[in-house]
């Protein structure tokens, strides 16, 4: 056990200062305003600046386009970019998938993509979910048919966050409808700037933009295939396991967050800090909310959720983190009252609307990267060893789904 400060040597200290100078210069209020307006989770200017320094892939060697950072420096970079609130969703999906691309892709294609990713000119989004399949990624019915040295792709993918600013989609397709569900899948790194790809925006009330992407007779070269034909599930497992990771790194002397939900929790930290700032502000009569035992309790309860969340490892922490943000965000809106309702970004909003934003943003964290229910199933089965329920569609595509696979470009989903 060790929670001490990591002592920085002179080089590391200098590096930290360099990063802070970088964020001060580049992650400006304009960047944040752009993010508030677009919700794109990405800023091209900053991303290219990061690329110039090798900081898109900071631990890659310099010759590969990275910065060759040691783990301490990589973590310092990470912390400072978070402190500065760099919109980094698209950087995240790119980092999550590039390793698998390298491992399973055609070497020439990989060389090209690796270079572009490192310099920031290529980004990768996830092409997992479909309108009808939700959390059941292996139920994909976007169809890829081989035609000579090419593949013809038809179907659609939803929650392809960042597609509008990405050059590639990390795409799961079905190449055989007769094999068992997990066997007939093939992965591609699909270039998005080809004919037949149509990206339509979807907006969330968390302020984020995501997309639905339609594929109509999209033709791509076989060099964009990742791994073997019908072997897509084993290719996908790498990044999927990273997202869902079991056990979590409780390694000795690590300074990595142990919860895979820690990203969510950062937002709760901001909301809690905003609530404390409110609670410590004296009224005209000198009284402060924080002097009220009930306010102490309620702030303490949210702080407890937060501390419990960052202490909860792996996929358990993912559920706890989301739940803490969902419940904690709502509690803080109540506590601060009407002032907390004023929309993010409005001049009257307390602390820039951090609490309003948290309550809205929170809801997405219960879904993306796998719903909390998917994770509770994982915990029940893999941590507790409880038996898996025997659903009819575990192993096969349901009849209904196979039939509807004929449909190609569905309209934008109109939920209920």
């Amino acid at each position, binding site marked *: 056990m060790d929670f001490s400060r990591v002592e920085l040597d002179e080089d590391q200290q200098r590096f930290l200062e360099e990063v802070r100078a970088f964020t001060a210069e580049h992650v400006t209020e304009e960047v944040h305003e752009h993010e508030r307006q677009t919700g794109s989770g990405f800023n091209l200017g900053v991303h290219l600046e990061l690329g110039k320094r090798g900081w898109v892939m900071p631990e890659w060697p310099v010759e590969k386009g990275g910065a060759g950072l040691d783990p301490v420096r990589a973590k310092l970079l990470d912390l400072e970019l978070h402190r500065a609130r760099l919109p980094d969703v698209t950087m995240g999906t790119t980092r999550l998938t590039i390793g698998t691309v390298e491992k399973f892709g055609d070497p020439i294609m990989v060389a090209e993509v690796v270079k572009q990713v490192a310099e920031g000119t290529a980004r990768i989004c996830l092409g997992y*979910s479909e309108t*009808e*399949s*939700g*959390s*059941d990624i292996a*139920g994909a019915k976007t169809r890829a048919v081989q035609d000579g040295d090419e593949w013809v792709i038809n179907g659609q993918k*939803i*929650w392809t966050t960042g597609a509008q600013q990405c050059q590639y989609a990390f795409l799961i397709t079905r190449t055989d409808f007769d094999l068992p569900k997990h066997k007939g899948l093939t992965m591609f790194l699909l270039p998005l700037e080809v004919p037949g790809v149509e990206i339509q925006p*979807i*907006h*969330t*009330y*968390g302020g984020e933009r*995501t997309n639905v992407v339609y594929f109509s007779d999209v033709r791509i070269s076989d060099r964009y295939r990742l791994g073997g034909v019908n072997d897509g599930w084993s290719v996908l497992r790498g990044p999927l396991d990273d997202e869902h990771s079991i056990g979590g790194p409780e390694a000795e002397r690590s300074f990595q967050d142990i919860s895979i939900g820690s990203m969510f929790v950062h937002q709760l930290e901001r909301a809690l800090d905003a609530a404390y700032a409110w609670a410590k502000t004296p009224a005209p009569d000198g009284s402060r909310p924080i002097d009220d035992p*009930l306010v102490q309790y*309620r702030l303490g309860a949210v702080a407890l959720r937060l501390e419990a969340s960052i202490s909860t490892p792996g996929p358990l922490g993912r559920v706890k983190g989301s739940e803490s943000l*969902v419940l904690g965000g*709502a*509690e803080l*809106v*109540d*506590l*601060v*009252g*009407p*002032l*907390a*309702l*004023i*929309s993010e970004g*409005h001049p*009257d909003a307390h602390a820039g609307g951090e609490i*309003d934003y948290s*309550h*809205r943003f929170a*809801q*997405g964290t*219960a*879904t*993306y990267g796998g*719903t909390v*229910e998917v994770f*509770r*199933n994982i915990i029940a089965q893999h941590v507790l060893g409880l038996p898996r329920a025997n*659903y*009819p*569609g*575990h192993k*096969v595509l*349901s009849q*209904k*789904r196979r039939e509807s696979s004929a449909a190609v470009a569905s309209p*934008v*989903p*109109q*939920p*209920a």
Partner: protein
Amino acid sequence: MDRFELRYQDYSLSEDQQTVRDAFRDFFTSESPSSRVRAAEPTGFDERLWRQLSEMGAASMSLPEAVGGDDATLLDLLLVAEELGRALAPVPCIEQAVSARALHAIGAPSDLLAAAADGSSVCALAPEPVGRGARQLVPGGAVAQNVLALDGDALVLVHSDEPPAHVPNQGRTPLAWWDLAGGQRRELARGAHAVEVYERAQAEWKLLMASALVGLTEQALHIAVEFAKTRETMGVVIGSLQGVAFPLADIAIGIAGARNLTRRAAWYLENEPGVRPDLVPAAYAYAAQVATHGATTAQHTQGGLGFTTEADASLYFLRAKGWSVLFGDPVKDIAAAGRLLADELPSQTAPVLAAATG
């Protein structure tokens, strides 16, 4: 309070009440579909709907017939508010109804009362006494010409020909800052009765909002249930999974209880005020909890779809919290209920036998 006293436990609606409820449900269903709710964003005010509703007498119905009302009770208004909430109707109907009742109770001049009753101007209610801050975020304030407020022991009407600027907010409501100490102020009454009328108006606002939240939550649940009945995962309909179904059952439990608790609280306020004052804050706080939790669960049932602005569930989610915090932190109402109940309960637990013969 005697917990073993024989009282009716009658939560049922009379035929007239059912007629009122059905009429407003039909009206809101046809006139306030989600497309219209969206069109009224961000201010949350649909002027045409407001005129239609005023013609139906929604705000004036609980005034005496003599002043243009229908003699409806607070309980009748609860039914209207529930339907308003179900449809997320973008109209300041709760504010207006409560203000009109208060103006009548205080014996306000007939011109004021008439304007409130026919909807030609909007009158809102200050959430807090002016003593706790003259600059207040007033629900409905961005479309109101008048705000009823309590300053010391004086009930005042603050007027502004042009309502102040709308403050964009999570609940998409016509919220605006009003300076209740300045501007054109008219004192309507002063003294204990004035304070009482203001506090009664606050209580009524909370009960009507509680009803609106019940209706809101029930519709959010309905959307989620319809989705869960048809959406499949792994070859089964998701509504057959306990991980989906049990949270939805819990919302249904919350709705049923919050509705009845609100009705009971309103019955006491109207018929035996002072006997169970704890029930008003309890009902309001419970409805706020049920709405927050229910709308959260309902949108989550739809997975990613529920998180999109396209989904009607999102409209319900944003208003669940955005409406229930308009009058301030509802958790304070739980503390208020706890404090009020202390005066209603004995200081010592009675031995069983003493109670039995008491």
